């Protein structure tokens, strides 16, 4: 019987989501016959792993430490096999401007944008800089912290007067804010797993239609607040481009075992890369388990498969 240690919680802003994701993953793994323990990430973790090393660790952590590669570096140094992308890949993915630049170089469209720190605004003067941003990127704009998930700190800005408060909201979560041109279109999330040969396979795209138009934290985690379409309501050619883009993202960023790629498909059926997630949400309202279900699979089966992949590639 496999022994898996699921890590859930941590100290990031997404702790609550991570705790719920972790419970769901642990549940599903138990159902597939795996012995699972769940631990928080705290000062007792390293000693606990050293004294009783698990066969494999699944960091179901959202937010920094868990998603930025730091924890995985620690696991690697302890010689423990773990699920998910390697540290370098995490660093590239976690930092949205870096991920976008790599994807753009790989030929995938991504909304025009700028990443600016509070310090930059101080140096160059906010009024002048914000005006120049609006002049060059137009409206509407999406403002978000460059690092982080669950739409924390995200504001869609439709009027220039709303930009200062959007910047302050983004800086509440991180030191650098990304301001992007907001692309109207069909929002989709494509979850990716690997087959037994390690080939990335995209699951059916999930189309996201939140009430109020923004897939905010509330929209994500309140059942009923968002309507999902699986598979996404795209023409076959649009669906193929989207899937292709997601696989390109997976490969370009060097993901491993699983990930999720978020795109917007515009009226010309072009997929625009927004971001990727090495540790996608696994809660009862999350996109990854939804895609598994849409593919006619069971989470317990898929998660057990992911664990096996992790052991093979460690």
């Amino acid at each position, binding site marked *: 019987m496999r022994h898996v240690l699921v890590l859930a919680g941590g100290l990031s802003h997404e702790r609550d989501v991570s705790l719920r994701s972790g419970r769901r993953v642990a549940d599903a793994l138990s159902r597939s016959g795996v012995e699972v323990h769940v631990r928080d990430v705290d000062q007792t973790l390293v000693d606990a792993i050293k004294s009783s090393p698990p066969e494999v660790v699944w960091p179901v952590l959202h937010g920094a430490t868990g998603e930025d590669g730091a924890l995985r570096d620690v696991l690697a140094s302890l010689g423990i096999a773990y699920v998910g992308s390697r540290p370098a890949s995490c660093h590239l993915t976690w930092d949205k401007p870096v991920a976008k630049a790599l994807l753009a170089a790989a030929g995938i469209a991504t909304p025009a944008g700028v990443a600016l720190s509070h310090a930059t605004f101080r140096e160059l003067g906010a009024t002048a800089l914000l005006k120049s941003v609006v002049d060059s990127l137009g409206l509407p704009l999406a403002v978000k912290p460059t690092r982080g998930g669950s739409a924390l700190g995200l*504001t869609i800005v*439709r009027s220039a007067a709303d930009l200062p408060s959007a910047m302050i909201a983004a800086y509440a979560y991180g030191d650098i804010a990304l301001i992007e041109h907001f692309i109207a279109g069909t929002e989709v999330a494509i979850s990716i797993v690997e087959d037994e040969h390690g080939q990335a396979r995209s699951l059916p795209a999930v189309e996201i239609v939140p009430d109020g138009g923004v897939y905010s934290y509330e929209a994500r985690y309140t059942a009923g607040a968002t309507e999902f*379409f699986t598979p996404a309501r795209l023409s076959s050619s649009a669906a193929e481009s989207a899937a292709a883009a997601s696989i390109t993202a997976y490969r370009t960023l060097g993901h491993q075992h699983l990930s999720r790629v978020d795109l917007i498909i515009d009226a010309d059926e072009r997929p625009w890369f927004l971001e990727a997630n090495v540790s996608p949400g696994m809660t009862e309202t999350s996109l990854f388990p939804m895609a598994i279900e849409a593919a006619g699979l069971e989470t317990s089966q898929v998660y057990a498969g992911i664990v096996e992949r992790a052991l093979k590639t460690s």
Partner: protein
Amino acid sequence: MGDSYHVPHGAAYPLVAVTPADSERRKVMTDTAGQPASAIERPEDTIREASHGSRLDPWMQSYAQRTAGMTTSEIRALFAVASRPEVVSLAGGMPNLSALPMDMVATTVAQMLATHGLTALQYGSGQGDPTLREQILEVMALEGISAHTDDVVVTTGSQQALDLVTRIFIDPGDVVLAEAPSYVGALGVFASYQAYVAHVASDNDGLVPHALEERINELLASGKRIKFLYTVPNFHNPAGTTLSLQRRPQILQICQRHGILVLEDNPYGLLGFEGDPPAAMRSMSDEGVVYLGTFSKTFAPGLRVGWALAPHAVREKLVLASESAILCPSTYAQMTVSAYLATCDWKAQIKVYRELYRERRDAMIESLGALLPQASWTHPEGGFYVWLTLPDGLNAKAMLPRAITERVAYVPGTAFFADGTGHRHVRLSYCYPDPDRIREGVRRFASVVQSELELLETFGPYDVTAGRTPPSRSVQSPAPDLS
């Protein structure tokens, strides 16, 4: 979409048209059966069939209107981090039970079960245990209240009493008058009965009588029905203020003149640090006041024992309402409280609690004074909370994520207003952490305020509520088990 092809000057990401070769496309595409997709291009306007729309909640269309505010909130999720020991939480309201003589309590409970087990574990009266109701009169006598046992209704915490009173008085759209700010737990109850909450200005001496009079006249002129005034007159949660003795009869007279009931909620009255508690409003008016009390802060919250003292006709309805909600309050918990009151020196215990909280209040006020000259705050003379006003332009709700990063938690003032205001205020609780932790928490909080002031300086004054989605009606305070 013309402007999606425009390459803006200085843009970080030149837009590149994506034209993967057909063969590339075929290689990576897979259908759900794991087979490579067909190489034959299908017509561009063929939408995939059988797209299944779902909101993940099959009962979405079935919920009652009163559930409108029951959504997850970012703010509430941030409090999950506050429960970690690395974070100094100044956000919770958990009483500090370390001073409770646990051995004595354990013996009392064991003895109670040994001698009265069959009663304690059985259904009891819907109105509550008569012995306990007598004892409750003794507790209320400390605040000048004289009443009859028949008029006491024991409930599952005074929170439930609040719920029952609201249930028997409020039709959707009816007005409840409340202080500005008001207790978040009460606002939740009022929202669940679809009341219209009208806040009334309060200052360092509590509710302002002429503001109350004005608000009442305003509301009546617009054709609204006002049912009751909800007030926490002693060591207010969250404001920390106490309604002055002078103002109490004034408020009562104003309400009496307009036929408005006063709902007096008094969990902290016996936890004052200077002298005797002020006379309860109920001690000045029998028929005009429903009084709510609880053992949560004077003994222990886990037992869930509170009460309502009401005029007889109101009491009758409360008993019926309570029976239909819970059948009867926990006999076991009531008899535990009763045994505790009979055998332990509960008044001395309250004194011990007072000293514990005084020490913590002092630590908080001292460190605020030393570290936050740009802010202002109330000086509570009892209870658990300080109500702080941030420098102009700051937004306590927007600031919370940064505070969490800096490992300190508080409750943004927006939680305590039904009208979407409160951005400039913060509730800081001192009841739980040790004095040193409180000082550390204030230090961290001060550094967060400083960072926010720097941001404000950079971006200039702005509308704190601009551009965001409309004020959420979700619950924005932590769950009760956050220390």
